[in-house]
């Protein structure tokens, strides 16, 4: 077990077992990345089907009911099951290395978080085969959700409840990791920006997911037992759902975009060969965005009828967010200013990100003006706005970071040439799809429509928008091809692949051994690897401890078993309201028993982990890097 990471002669079964039981943050990062990519592809395909339907007026390519399922699953999947895990993938793979830690604080929980997310996602997607997907939008507004027939909404509620628990667990794990596991000398104000944004984003998860959990739980008991929290004819109130959802939903946007900001704050200094400009104001801006992110949820509800004063307060609060966000943009530009910019694929994404994100940001401020929002709300203008932010801000960060961090994560590089093609096709497709949608909205086209009548002045622009969607799809396919090709390429076996790495993750040679740093590094300042490198330290770091035994956690299958338990229980909860399925309650109990049983086993059985002895460390290093180890 101790040399599990080194052995590459294992059979398929052993490898599978290794991944099912692993608690290694690097492997979980890879699993998050591939699961996220899978769901990104599914949700992207759903978007493509919708755009094909809207290519021409009065099309009957997909039916009205199917279209509503597609739009619901596209939004839900992209936010919860694609963007979140992809960013968690990078957080897992990179943050412990950036702070010089052996692993995250709670490796077992890390694994549990992944499996809950993954099985929740699978559960939600099974709805397509079990009587229909949810169809009330990703916002799942209560009156429509309660009215919706079939089990679609139950899949939504239970699937998100399970995967949301996984996200919450992972968020807590990262907060603890970043606060307690930093290497000596890594003070808060020496932490790389990606670590900072991961910390703030995890804190947002901690506060934002409970309202969602509460909302989903109320919805669940409404549908399971007729509890009437949201049934206005029985004294319930549907506007409460809107509040609960958006108190979660707006911070969720920042949960996703902050790590994206962090990733760009890593990429830009490396390829501009220049220290991040205004580091402390970047940190301050991140915290401020996180804080203000909780103060603005009602700007999603300007037309709900909350009254002038509420609208006025939330309008001004929303505008205020533009200030710290603007600070960040100017700091990125000033990092480039006077630097030496090498245009690699990750930098290309960063360069494309800045103008796209600014465009998405300013339309956000326009919608903060409440009276103007009465016109823009729920029109294609808002669709254009949030896709500029999410695709222009988050997806570009993810694609760019795949290229950027692939060498660390896989000891392979993605092709630059193919990457440039991917970037341009995807980027042009993105602007072609969404720029024009601003005008569609201003021309009166509501969002979430499965079709539109001809001659309302929308035909041409919808056609152009659909062409753009096809380009984006081609871009994504090229990226997947690039990933597949990279698996066949030669291992890199190098340190600091891009040549200008600054933070600790670049100080370590690839492939990264399962215990990360053989000795915990000592951090002497911001950008520690850059400091050591330019002080002529060839090893890339100095150490805070002598070479000694390394304490590592044991692998465990229990997280998977606990998650399977909730997965099984969810089917019981789902089918119970049908009334004609006597097996529903037993299944619910069985599922919960599996989960609780696994928890008891975990609590009763002492698991102290294991030690990697010095000789083994030296042997591993030599096996990985040849004689002399990591020099």
């Amino acid at each position, binding site marked *: 077990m101790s040399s599990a990471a080194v052995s590459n002669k294992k059979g398929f079964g052993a490898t599978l077992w290794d991944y099912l039981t692993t608690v290694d943050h690097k492997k979980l990062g890879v699993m998050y990345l591939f699961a996220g990519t899978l769901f990104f592809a599914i949700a992207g395909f759903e978007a493509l089907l919708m755009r094909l339907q809207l290519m021409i007026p009065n099309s009957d390519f997909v039916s009205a009911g199917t279209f509503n399922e597609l739009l619901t699953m596209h939004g839900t999947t992209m936010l919860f099951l694609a963007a979140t895990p992809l960013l968690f993938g990078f957080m897992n793979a990179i943050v412990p290395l950036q702070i010089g830690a052996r692993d995250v604080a709670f490796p077992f929980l890390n694994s549990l978080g992944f499996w809950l997310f993954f099985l929740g996602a699978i559960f939600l997607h099974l709805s397509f085969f079990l009587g229909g997907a949810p169809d009330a939008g990703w916002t799942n507004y209560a009156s*429509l959700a309660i009215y919706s027939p079939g089990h679609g909404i139950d899949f939504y509620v239970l699937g998100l409840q399970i995967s949301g628990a996984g996200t919450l667990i992972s968020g807590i794990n990262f907060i603890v990791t970043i606060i307690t596991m930093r290497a000596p000398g890594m003070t808060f104000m020496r932490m790389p920006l990606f670590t900072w944004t991961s910390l703030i984003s995890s804190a947002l998860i901690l506060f934002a997911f409970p309202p969602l959990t509460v909302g989903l739980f109320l919805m669940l008991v409404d549908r399971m037992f007729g509890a009437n929290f949201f049934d206005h004819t029985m004294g319930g109130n549907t*506007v409460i759902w809107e509040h609960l959802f958006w108190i979660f939903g707006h911070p969720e946007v920042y949960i996703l975009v902050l790590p994206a900001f962090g990733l760009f704050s890593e990429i830009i200094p490396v390829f501009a060969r220049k220290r991040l400009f205004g580091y402390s104001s970047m940190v301050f801006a991140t915290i401020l965005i996180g804080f203000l992110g909780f103060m603005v949820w009602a700007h999603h509800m300007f*037309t709900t009828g909350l009254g002038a004063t509420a609208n006025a307060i939330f309008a001004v609060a929303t505008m205020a967010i533009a200030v710290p966000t603007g600070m960040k943009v100017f700091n990125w530009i000033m990092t480039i200013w006077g630097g030496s910019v090498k245009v690699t694929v990750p930098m290309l994404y960063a360069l494309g990100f800045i103008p796209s994100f600014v465009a998405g940001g*300013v339309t956000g401020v326009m919608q903060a003006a409440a009276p103007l929002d009465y016109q823009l709300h*729920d029109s294609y203008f808002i669709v254009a706005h949030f896709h500029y932010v999410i695709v222009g801000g988050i997806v570009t960060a993810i694609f760019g970071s795949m290229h950027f961090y692939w060498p660390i994560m896989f000891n392979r590089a993605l092709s630059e040439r193919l990457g440039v093609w991917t970037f341009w096709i995807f980027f042009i497709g993105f602007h072609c799809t969404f720029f024009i949608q601003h005008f569609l909205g201003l021309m009166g086209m509501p969002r979430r429509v499965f079709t539109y009548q001809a001659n309302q002045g929308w035909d041409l622009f919808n056609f152009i928008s659909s062409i753009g969607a096809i380009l984006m799809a081609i871009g994504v396919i090229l990226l997947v091809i690039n990933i597949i090709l990279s698996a066949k390429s030669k291992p890199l076996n190098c340190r600091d692949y891009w040549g200008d790495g600054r933070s600790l993750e670049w100080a370590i040679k690839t492939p990264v051994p399962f215990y990360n740093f053989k000795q915990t590094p000592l951090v002497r300042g911001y950008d520690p690897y850059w400091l050591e490198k330019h002080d002529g330290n060839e090893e890339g770091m100095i150490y805070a401890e002598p070479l000694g035994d390394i304490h590592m956690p044991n692998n465990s299958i229990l997280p998977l078993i606990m998650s399977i338990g909730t997965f099984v229980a969810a089917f019981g909860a789902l089918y119970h309201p049908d009334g004609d399925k006597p097996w529903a309650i037993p299944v619910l109990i069985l599922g919960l028993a599996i989960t609780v049983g696994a928890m008891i086993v975990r609590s009763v059985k002492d698991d102290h982990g294991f030690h990697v002895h010095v000789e083994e460390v030296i042997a591993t290093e030599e096996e990985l890097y040849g004689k002399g180890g990591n020099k």
Partner: protein
Amino acid sequence: MMKGLKKWRLFSLLAVMTVFLSACGEDYITTLKPTGAVGKEQFNLLLFSIAIMALVTIVVSVLYLYAFMKARRSKLGEDYMPKQVEGSHTLEVIWTVIPIVLLLILAVPTLISTYKLADVRAMDEVDEEGNKTALTVNVTAKLYWWEFEYPEQGIVTAQELVVPTGEKVYFNLKAADVKHSFWIPAVGGKMDTNVENVNKFYLQFDEESEGLEQGVFYGKCAELCGPSHALMDFKVKVLDRDGFDNWVAAMQATEGQTASADSADVGEQTFANSCLMCHAVSGVGTTGAMGPNLTTFGDRNRVAGVLEHTKENLEQWIDDPETIKPGNLMTGKYGELSDEEISAVADYIMGLSIEE
């Protein structure tokens, strides 16, 4: 050479203009050619905010492109080592203060408009005789159709809102089943129709709709409400004050009008037997009908909100509503009708009119 360049410039300018003009959309649905004070105020706010935001975008883009062009490694050489700058307090202050100032400038008209557009106190004002001075319309959104009640006038209609020019028209908005949203893009912003409370707002209609391509403005449902959300359209007919008064009088004159099962007309007979339970043919009444009031059906612009106003489409709609508006509540409510009955009842419904 110069001449060719000039021509090329002119051409590109024309191309941009064409796109820009076509980007304004159709008069009866676009927010970019608003009619009425509310839409115009929102449009002005749009222009004002676009101006500020365009300024921001241009400044940022110029800075960014300049920084990038000057800093390319391909120009500076592979070994160039930039100065490692920590930051600048002066710059930080500048790019914090300037956005704050710009946002404050935007916030002022935003706040004024927010309060102004929410001011519905005039709804309750009465003259000496105790009659309300302002026109109020109660809007009820139902799964895929709209009901408009005029409480002071004692009349009710559906699918086609009729309003006078030149005055504020106040709306009470409510949904009967699931949440919808009431939006007339060319006239002003939307307001949700919630299930548990009445939302109030006002709009102003300055231009008669007669001059428009189809003689009506388009209204939309803007909140996802089920499969036929995209088809939940309504129309707005704007008349001058006299025209509106005449319309109200004509509606009031239909009091007691009904279809008789004993009629010699097969259409009326069928209507009385199969349709009258849900669809009234008298404009006098209150809100709460199961199906749209059909008193003015012959005068309307569309069948079922979306189909062209022809007898064939009406027959198709009566024959199989589900294929036209999936999830509607009319399907299966009236049994099987024969082709002759459908044709006759369509004739009867198309004949329901209060306009000469």
